[in-house]
Every structure is written in structure tokens, then in C-alpha cells.
């Protein structure tokens, strides 16, 4: 069976709303418009306007309202039309949501999910293309998830909604329409993935490639091509940015002795830097070569198609990084 990421998210929301009357969805255009990207399609009809709440374009306000409702014990799912707009509300995500359980010594837990598309889409320019994985991932009190496939999307969103802590859930607009095979287990309404665990998408022994969200697809494509060249790449789909699954990453690097990190966001203080540090800390002696870091170019996102292409990692980048020195393996025919 196949399922798009969009349907995976939609069905996860639907099932969790049906399972727990405290779960509700709020955000811009989530209701009558069926979601700017149609993730909430059909939910208004099914659950009514009390539980599928269209908001004005006031992120700070509605995020604060969502967090307040979570203080009281509801389980809000707050949709940001894109995570770029979460900056208007970031104080509530960090100061009101992430820190409350700690400051109150456990009195005020905050079971809330902040979700929406994160990072680059196509041709939307600098203000609409930022990746927030590293920022949110740096903050204790938050859990940060980033699904790649439909399995991830279903399993992680359900886990996020059921989790008693604030979860930032980073989707990717360009993946919404992509289809992935799903098992019966994944389709079962009890399906749920553990938070904090990465998934080895493909086993290998020569090089470890870590990636999350859309970049997992590139890593898998690169691994496929590499295998034809006799290089066996292990691809780790991080799934969880915080907690980061240091164990799985380190175990893999101890086996392959080489590491390539891939992300779409800005490089400095990014997820790749953290993974590099984690491996240097725990598996320094196992590294046979410098860690290769693939990330978004260190520039605001340009609009022009040619520049945009240069600004986000392409699978050719993953590929050449994985074979070591640039130019070692030039296979333009693959792309």
C-alpha cells in the first residue's frame, strides 16, 4: 500500500482527535479552507469548529492561547502555516511552553504540538524558506521531530500528540505530495513511533550518512548510486532532532568510520555541527576521515531558480561528500 505524507498527517490527526476529545487543532485556514496545504482536510466537517479552530493571522496570540489551553490540560495542535511565521510566536514556544514544567517543578506540564512545514519550499524566497530544526532543537524542554516518510509522519505525529511535553513537529511542504509504501502496522490506529530514536533506513558499512526530513530521500538516492560504485552507505533518518539519538549515530560511525551529515538549514550551529561534535566526543578514535557537512548555503534563500538550486543541498552534493574528496566520483549522468 502507498500513502502520501499529506494523508499520513491527516489520518494521524484524525485518529488522535477521535481518540482523545482533548485534542484540538488551531491555526490559520485549518478549518473552512481545509488547510493551506490541505493537511486538515475534512477535519472541520468531522469535528466541528470547536475542535478545528480557524484563527486570525496572529501567531503570537494564538500560540499563547494554545499554550494556555495546554496548561489547563487540553492537548492543542497548533499549526503554523509555515514555521517561518513561528518567529512571531517563538517567545511562547520557548518561554511559555518549553520552560514551564521546569519552572513550576512539574506543576504545569504543557502537552502541545506545534506543527507545520519547515525549511525551503520552491521559489518562495528568503523570508519563507528557513529551517528551524537547529534553533528549536537547542532548547531543553522541547522535543523536536522531523518526519521524512509517511510512516514517520503517522508514527511521529501520533507520538507527538500523545506526548505530555511540548513538541515541535517540522514537516516539509515538498514532501506532502510524495507517496511512500506503508505496512498494515503503520496504518493501524494504534501505530506510534518512539520519540528520540533514529531509524536506519539503509544499512551499510563504508560511510554513515545522517539526514532528516526531505534530505533523507537524497541520502537514500545517493546511497543507491554509491552501491553501484561498490560503496556501502548506511543512511540514518534522524526522525528526532531533540532528543538526538546519539547512540544510533555513534554506533553507526563506529562501524563505518566515516560520517556525512546532511541538512537543508544554515550550516553554522546546525544539526550537522552537533552530530559532528557528538561523534567527536564519543567516537573520536573511530573516525577515519573528517566529518563531511552538507547544509544549506550560508546565504538567505535566493528566488532565482539557478541560485536556489545552489543554495539547498542536491543529491549530487551528498554523493560527492560521501565519496570523500570532491571529484572522486563525478557521475552527472545520475542526475
Amino acid at each position, binding site marked *: 500500500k502507498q500513502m502520501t505524507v499529506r494523508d499520513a498527517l491527516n489520518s494521524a490527526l484524525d485518529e488522535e482527535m477521535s481518540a482523545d476529545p482533548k485534542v484540538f487543532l488551531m491555526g490559520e485556514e485549518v478549518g473552512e479552507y481545509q488547510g493551506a496545504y490541505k493537511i486538515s482536510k475534512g477535519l472541520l466537517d468531522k469535528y466541528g469548529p470547536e475542535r478545528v479552530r480557524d484563527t486570525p493571522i*496572529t501567531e503570537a496570540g494564538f500560540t499563547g492561547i494554545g499554550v494556555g489551553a495546554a*496548561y489547563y490540560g487540553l492537548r492543542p495542535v497548533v499549526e503554523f502555516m509555515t514555521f517561518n511565521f513561528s518567529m512571531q510566536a517563538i517567545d511562547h514556544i520557548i518561554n511559555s511552553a518549553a520552560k514551564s514544567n521546569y519552572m513550576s517543578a512539574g506543576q504545569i506540564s504543557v502537552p502541545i504540538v506545534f506543527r507545520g512545514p519547515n525549511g525551503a519550499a520552491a521559489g518562495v524566497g528568503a523570508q519563507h524558506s528557513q529551517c528551524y530544526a537547529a534553533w528549536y532543537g537547542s532548547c531543553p524542554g522541547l522535543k523536536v521531530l522531523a518526519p521524512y516518510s509517511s510512516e514517520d509522519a503517522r508514527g511521529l505525529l501520533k507520538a507527538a500528540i500523545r506526548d505530555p511535553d511540548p513538541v515541535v513537529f517540522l514537516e516539509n511542504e515538498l514532501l506532502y505530495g510524495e507517496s511512500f509504501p506503508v505496512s498494515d502496522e503503520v496504518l493501524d490506529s494504534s501505530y506510534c513511533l518512539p520519540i528520540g530514536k533514529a531509524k536506519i533506513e539503509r544499512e551499510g558499512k563504508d560511510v554513515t550518512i545522517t539526514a532528516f526530513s526531505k534530505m533523507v530521500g537524497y541520502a537514500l538516492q545517493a546511497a543507491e548510486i554509491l552501491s553501484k560504485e561498490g560503496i556501502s552507505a548506511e543512511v540514518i533518518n534522524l526522525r528526532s532532532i531533540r532528543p538526538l539519538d546519539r547512540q544510533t549515530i555513534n554506533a553507526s560511525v563506529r562501524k563505518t568510520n566515516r560520517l556525512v551529515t546532511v541538512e537543508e538549514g544554515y550550516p553554522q550551529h546546525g544539526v550537522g555541527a552537533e552530530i559532528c561534535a557528538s561523534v567527536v566526543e564519543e567516537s573520536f578514535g573511530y573516525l577515519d576521515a573528517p566529518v563531511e557537512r552538507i547544509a544549506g548555503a550560508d546565504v538567505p534563500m535566493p528566488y532565482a531558480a539557478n541560485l536556489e538550486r545552489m543554495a539547498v543541498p542536491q543529491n549530487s552534493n551528498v554523493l560527492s561528500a560521501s565519496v570523500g574528496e570532491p571529484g572522486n566520483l563525478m557521475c552527472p549522468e545520475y542526475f
Partner: protein
Amino acid sequence: QTTLTIETSVPFTAHKIEPPSRTVETTPKELLGFFKDMAKMRRMEIAADSLYKSKLIRGFCHLYDGQEAVAVGMEAAITKKDCIITAYRDHCIYLGRGGTLVEAFAELMGRKAGCSKGKGGSMHFYKKDSGFYGGHGIVGAQVPLGCGLAFAQKYSKDGTVSFTMYGDGAANQGQLFEALNMAALWDLPAILVCENNHYGMGTAEWRAAKSPAYYKRGDYVPGLKVDGMDAFAVKQACKFAKEYALQNGPIILEMDTYRYHGHSMSDPGSTYRTRDEISGVRQERDPIERVRKLVLSHDLATEKELKDIEKEVRKEVDEAIAQAKESPMPEPSELFTNVYVKGFGVEAFGADRKEVKAVLP
């Protein structure tokens, strides 16, 4: 027990609504209770000032003395099922909600017995079991949060309301207008209580707001201006607002009040306002003195008896401090608790990752 009727100090000024009557019903018990509760709050804050000066309290510490009538008047009108949320000036709200002096002082001193186990500090008191949701340090943030509590109350069909307290400085924050719009669109039982003590830190209200008529700043949302130094006016307004909000949605109460202390402990509170202004308020509008006069004029107690109450309160406070001082600092292991409700057994690190590691519960 007899019922007394008391006239509020001044009439309510109203925006887009018919104001409640100036005549408030009370009982001798309530009147004396107000006296004692406010005296206790006052005493607690003054003791906190001393503890701060002797370095037993650290960091920021914002005192509430002068504003006590707001806390007690509000509590008299509502139940613990109603919610309250406020900013960092939260000690007396906590006490009003039924918090204990010991837990308050222990928190201020960062001890294990504190209401937040010493992890929150002065600005982060909570008492969820009595509907007190903190204690927030970011100016304005509590307003959407409070509207969110009201959202949840309505969603849960609980028939209760939330009171969200904020200062005159916070009243200009954009998130307030965002939240109010949604509260009004969705008819949330949200009562916005602007504690107008006329200064946001060192800035007089008129220097921060083109329109310091905070009860009107909701525009399309009704509002009342209330003498916040008169516990009975506060009670009357809160009762009225609760009824209104349950039926119709949000309403703003502007409490005309005053803080005696500086903004926080580093502010002497005297560079941006005159000593005359402060002593004038103390002499003419002090909330405790107002109630003392009412008690005396209704012959409910003698001056001596009131003094005794004050002495008793003083003793309670002193004992609480002594007890709080007995409480140890939190266990070092508390550094890593409550980061999450569910930590999944993940490893977390201290400043030196090799020396301090913990497995999150």
C-alpha cells in the same frame, strides 16, 4: 451573620457597558478577613524586602505592597475553579489563591520546600490545584496564556472564567490585542485585569501609552475602571465581570492602584516619581487603612484588636521565614528533573559533559 452594605470609594467608569452598582454587600467576616489577608500580604512583601537585602533572596524580586486590594477583592468574587494568571509580581496572588507563606518564602530563597521547589524563583510561583497558573516573566505573555485558559474552560464546558492580570506597561503589548480579538471572536470567558499602578518600571503611563485609558483600550470589548485600592470595588467589579464574561465573552477591568516599592529591588522607586506622590497615596488611598476604617466605623473590632491581628500576622510571617530557612537547597539531582514530563531515559549533560551526565526520568 449580618450583611453589611458598603459604598465603593468612587463610581465605576464604564466603556461600552452599564457599570455595576457602587453598593457592595459584605459581611463582618469578610471585612475582617480582608484586613487580615491584606496585612499578611503587606507583611510578607516587607519581609521579602529584608530578606533580599540580607542576600537570602537573589535576582529579580517584584513586590506587591500597595496593590493588595486587587488580590483580595478578586478572590472574594470568584472560586478556586476560576483561573488566575499574572506576571512576575506574583507573591500575593499566590497567597490569595491559598498558597502558604512557608512555600512562598522557601521559593524566594531557592529552597526545596518552595512552591516551585526552588526552581522557579520570585517570578515563577504556581498553584495549579487552586487555579493559579503563574508567575510569568515576559511582559505581556500571560495575556494570551490567560485567554488560552479561558479557551480551555469554555472548551471543557466548565462554567468558570479566567482572570489575566497585567500591568499598565504590558497594556501596550501587541499580543494583548491579538488575544483579545480572538477572545472576543470566540466569546471566551476571559477577564483582563489591568493593574494600573501608573508606572512600568520607570516609565509613567502617559509616556508609554498614547491612551492610558486602559479600560477603553479593548475598543470593541467593554471595560470598567475600578478603584484598585478599594477591595470592595474590586470585588464588585470581579463579580460583575465574571457574570458578564460567562455570558458574553471578554471584558477589561482597569484597576487604579499603586505600588509602594520600586519596580524591583534594584529600583529605589523614587527617581521617576515624587516622594509626595507616594506618601499621598499611602495617606489617602492605602487599601489596608481603608478597610481598617471600615472595620472601626462598623464597630466590628477595636483598634487594639486590629493591631493584634497585625501582630499575629507578623508572627506568622516570621515563623514562616524561620521554617523556610530550615528547608535545604534542592537536591543536585533536581537539576535534571522536570525538564520533561517524559524524558525517555535520554542522557542529558551538565556543564562539563564528562563530569555531569544524567538520565532523564
